[in-house]
């Protein structure tokens, strides 16, 4: 039996699990028309979960602190991703509450399963927390599967919509195949080192023959790459984003991606790096390919969700620069800072897409024409998010890009080529991001009716918008926070 004191370090996880169960109960007792209550309870519960997480952030300062016999990490790195997962889940639920009402207004009866939707989101959030903290291959596998299963259901949530069904099925088939390959990689690693604990593997990995280890890493990357939508495991992304309810697409693009990167970095930095294997070249190559593929395919897109899907692929490439550059003052934190900043402006962009999509019944970028006159606040925020996605100062996106380029240059002059690829890709991406701004501000509206901005979503939008500006103008607290988190990775 693990000592009871271990449980004290798991309060956030236990709280989230309890919250999910409570939500199921609440959902039973609220009427058809009041399913938003479930959402509000979820938001309240998630915000309360930040309290014990904050307590952990203050308490845990030893590298490699683990519970349950070394299988579950409670280091600063894990705490950082707990924050990220909880904030992302909260914002997505806030946005979903409006999304359901708006699409319910148009279609009549889409809200029937609204309560379960929030419950599933909370459980997915718990899964993300578990992923980022798993320090044992078995737990990694289980938590990834946990997140995948709830995500499949969420992606297919619009029952009457064939595209959503297609998204769910496609996501499931891709996910199952990727997981199988990844498990094969895990089993190879276990066979080579005789342990499933990442920290034990780290001690033994130096004696493992390099070719076998390379094969194992490549197989594992299939699973991680699927979660972070890295090329060549990205094909599901545009179809799933397009078909899934937009808040789910937002959640996949931010939450799953962040947790996927957390697992990837933990496995690579803890278990693989001590072997001396040159994983940097491999990661850098995948990063460059992801950026190019994502950006070039984003150029012709006319559907905002597909565009954001390809942009999500290219951002996976940018964040992989952070994995390749891991180590050193900037490298340790580059990935964390990028993911944290990326969360806000990506969620913001998806939320506006969700709102417009629900109000206009269309996700086509041309339908954004004249948005600056129809909804000045929304258009301004969308412009801000687009500039941030491009990396124009003074936004969070700029600081993230600045930091991750700095990390690569600091790591080694040999990564300069990767920075050059990043520069070229930033310029390419400007074209399709600015295209959205162009449509909103330069083109005349086809229908001059104003678009209402509902109160709940406004909260989510102002949080994301304010964070996008604040993290760009004053990122010092984020750096301090990320440095404390990154130091703890042994």
């Amino acid at each position, binding site marked *: 039996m693990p000592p009871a004191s271990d449980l004290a370090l798991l309060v956030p996880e236990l709280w989230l699990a309890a919250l999910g169960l409570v939500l199921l109960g609440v959902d039973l007792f609220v009427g058809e028309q009041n399913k938003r209550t479930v959402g509000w309870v979820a938001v309240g519960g998630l915000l309360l979960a930040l309290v014990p997480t904050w307590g952990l952030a203050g308490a845990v300062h030893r590298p490699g602190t683990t519970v349950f016999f070394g299988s579950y990490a409670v280091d600063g790195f894990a705490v950082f991703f707990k924050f990220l997962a909880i904030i992302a889940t909260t914002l997505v639920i806030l946005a979903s509450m409006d999304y359901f009402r708006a699409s319910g207004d148009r279609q009549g009866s889409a809200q029937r399963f609204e309560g379960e939707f929030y419950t599933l989101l909370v459980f997915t959030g718990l899964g993300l927390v578990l992923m980022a903290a798993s320090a044992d291959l078995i737990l990694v596998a289980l938590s990834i599967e946990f997140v995948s299963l709830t995500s499949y259901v969420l992606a297919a949530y619009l029952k009457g919509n064939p595209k959503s069904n297609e998204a769910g099925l496609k996501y499931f088939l891709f996910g199952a195949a990727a997981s199988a390959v990844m498990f094969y990689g895990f089993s190879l690693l276990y066979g080579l080192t005789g342990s499933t604990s990442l920290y034990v593997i780290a001690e033994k990995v130096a004696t493992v023959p390099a070719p076998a280890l390379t094969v194992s890493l490549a197989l594992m990357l299939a699973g991680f790459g699927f979660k972070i939508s890295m090329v060549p495991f990205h094909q599901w992304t545009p179809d799933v984003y397009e078909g899934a309810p937009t808040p789910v697409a937002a959640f996949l693009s931010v939450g799953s991606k962040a947790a996927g990167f957390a697992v990837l970095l933990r496995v690579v930095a803890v278990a693989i790096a001590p072997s001396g294997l040159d994983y940097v070249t491999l990661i850098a190559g995948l990063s460059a390919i992801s950026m190019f593929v994502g950006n070039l395919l984003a150029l012709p897109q006319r559907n905002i969700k597909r565009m954001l899907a390809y942009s999500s692929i290219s951002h996976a490439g940018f964040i992989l620069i952070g994995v390749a550059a891991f180590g050193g003052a900037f490298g340790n934190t580059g990935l964390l800072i990028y993911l944290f900043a990326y969360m806000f402006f990506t969620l913001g962009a998806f939320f506006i897409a969700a709102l417009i999509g629900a109000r206009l019944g269309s996700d086509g970028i041309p339908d954004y024409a004249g948005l600056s006159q129809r909804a000045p606040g929304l258009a301004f925020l969308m412009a801000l998010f687009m500039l941030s996605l491009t990396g124009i100062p003074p936004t969070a996106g700029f600081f993230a890009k600045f930091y991750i380029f700095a990390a690569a240059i600091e790591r080694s002059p040999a990564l*300069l080529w990767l920075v050059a690829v990043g520069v070229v890709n930033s*310029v390419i991406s400007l074209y399709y991001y600015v295209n959205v701004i162009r449509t909103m501000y*330069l083109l005349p509206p086809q229908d001059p009716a104003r678009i209402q901005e509902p109160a709940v979503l406004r909260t989510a939008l102002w949080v994301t918008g304010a964070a996008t500006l604040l993290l760009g103008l004053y990122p010092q607290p984020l750096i301090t926070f990320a440095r404390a988190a990154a130091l703890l990775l042994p």
Partner: protein
Amino acid sequence: MLSLMLFLPLAGGIFLLFFRNPRAIRGIALGASLLSLYVSIVVLGRFDLHGGMQLLESYSWIPSVGIAYRVGIDGLSLPLVLLTQLLSAVSIVYSWRVDMRLKEYMFLLLLLQTAMLGVFAALDFFLFYIFWEVTLVPMYFLIGIWGGPRKEYAAIKFFLFTLIGSLAMLVGILLLYFNAAPRTFDVLSLIQQQPLAGQLRLATIAFWGFFLSFAIKVPMWPFHTWLPDAHVEAPTAGSVILAGILLKMGTYGFVRYSLTLFPQVFQQYASFIAILALLGIIYGALVAMAQTDLKKLVAYSSVNHMGYVMLGVSAAAFAYGKPDLAAAATTALNGAVFEMIAHGVITGALFLIVGVIYDYRAHTRGVDEFGGLGAILPVYSGITMVAMLASLGLPALMGFVAEFLIFLGSFGVFPGFAATGLLGIIITAAMFLWTIQRIFLGPANPRWKGLADMDTRELVALVPLTVLMVIFGVYPRPLLDIINAAMTTLVAALR
């Protein structure tokens, strides 16, 4: 003090968002711009000619990576700051009649003013980069919303071109940062440290990163192709600011950063860059001559004039490490900086002049469609002739002083190039004289008989610029003293 000057326009821009009345919006915009201009005149009053970098302000910002809010001013940035203030205020006055989406327009102009001032005053690379990039966004909207028929193409082209340069510069900045000890983004400390002095390969990469950014901004041949599109499609105030100030950000960067941070590399490639400058001079002048669109003509003459500036800068770069050429280098740099100001005033005026005839009167810019305007619009013709003659370098006007100094300095360093450059002056002179002849002389075209001469608003915008051309043409000393003190220090520091 400097911060107040920097952020007054932005504060005014945010303030006017709360108003609906067009008169209030215009009033607040002009008021904020003029207040900032007033503060910069106070700055000028406190400026110590031999004080080097002064009025420094420094506040902690992102200490864990060595970023701070640092601003300051010297004899190189002060004239450019004053030019920015002047042209911004003039642009707002000229834009009095804009009524389409007025609030956004004025907000963007004021945001642009803050960003441009920031570029010249920033002494921290991170801060500098933010201001540098922020100029792009309002300019994109100004061209894209209020521009001419091909505005969207021009706006995105401008954005893409300048962004690729900016990001290349960012890589250069990071290379400097990581090779400095202690790591810092403080420009003055980096200039003192010369972090890349011993590492030629990295220094070369960083130099070309900066070069790409500045050369696109200037724009040097062959990076100039965004300029005619952007200038022609931009609304009049946008063209004035683009030509008058944004281009100077490039040449300012060459003098402030490339010359001081990478003197060896710059010296190594100075001849090559001088050749690019010469190509710009000759090409710009010839293409300008072939234009029938008056706005395009002025745009290409900018390529030509910025070529003179770059000729002066590359001459100074070539003189690095040769003490006997120090005096010539200083003269060339004085000329280059003076030309930045002169070109800002003159070309700013020329774009306003094009706007006066195009926006509200003839609605055409075809040089060949006019003729004999001198008799119909005497005041307009007078001002235009002064501006064009100043642009072609007629003695006793501002452009002459600048070009004289540039060629005087360059002859001392590389006489062959300088002699070739003189060819550009001849072509420019021919081009402008021919233009004057086609528009103002000859038989009066009856089509334009009913045109009204300039109104008060246009006079308020144009007369100050014209007066400055004459004053600094006849008596350049006050301006030249400020520049010379800074350039002497700069050249001395390079030894």
